[in-house]
């Protein structure tokens, strides 16, 4: 029970753009997930290369498509 409560209140760490760029450059592809939660039209206009698109309204139902053991960077 305590574990569940702790997970609910685990803060999400904000990374500055240069920190995300460094993270991407320092980690091999396939070891992390870049997640774009915008709408398809926004993704089409511009997205970070390799980002997985899951629009926010669909995110909860699509979480099983992602690997929870890999770090996720969301934008």
């Amino acid at each position: 029970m305590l574990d569940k409560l702790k997970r609910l209140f685990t803060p999400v760490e904000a990374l500055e753009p240069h920190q995300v760029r460094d993270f991407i450059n320092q980690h091999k592809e396939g070891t992390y997930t870049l997640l774009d939660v915008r709408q398809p039209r926004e993704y089409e206009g511009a997205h970070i290369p390799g980002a997985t698109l899951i629009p926010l309204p669909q995110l909860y139902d699509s979480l099983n498509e992602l690997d929870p053991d890999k770090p996720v960077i969301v934008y």
Partner: protein
Amino acid sequence: MAGQGFTKVYNLSGGISAWEGETAQGPVGLHLDLVRGDEPPGEIIKLAYAMERGLGGFYTKIKGIVQDPALSNLLGTLISAEEKHKQYLLTTLHEIAAGKIDREAFEAGLSQKIMEGGFEGEELFEKNRQFLETTSGLLDLAMMLETQALDLYLRFVGKIEGSEAKDVLYRIADEEKAHLQSLGKLRDQYA
């Protein structure tokens, strides 16, 4: 997500508007028709090799018509980079095939029209002529192509079924990432 078992979740502060790096364009499905999904690793490498060869051919064509020595030198550098990529892919194929690959026979069976990112050379040339007149314009174009290529390889991962083929795509994507970083440094020199 943090409450759903995802232990490391980060947020890009400022969102994509704050992002200063390269971005890719196009819908999720762009050029995904280049793969079926059931390709073994060797076929993935074949596709990537065809695209690298296509881009090298594109740069070679431009080199044949430019007059500016600085542009010509830069194109020579870009062509060399594509040759290195092709060599990397052949080495990877040797590892997977556990035997020597006949380069000539391998190249004979490749698609002639395609290049990195899924573009076709003639169309790309006509649409981007204005970028081919300066070194900075050429580097901007090169970075755009490599960014689209990186994005495409990673989008292929979502369609490809086999884990070995996915691993090959991740390795190719890592090469593209390194190449993009080199191009970025080159662009800083020519800016």
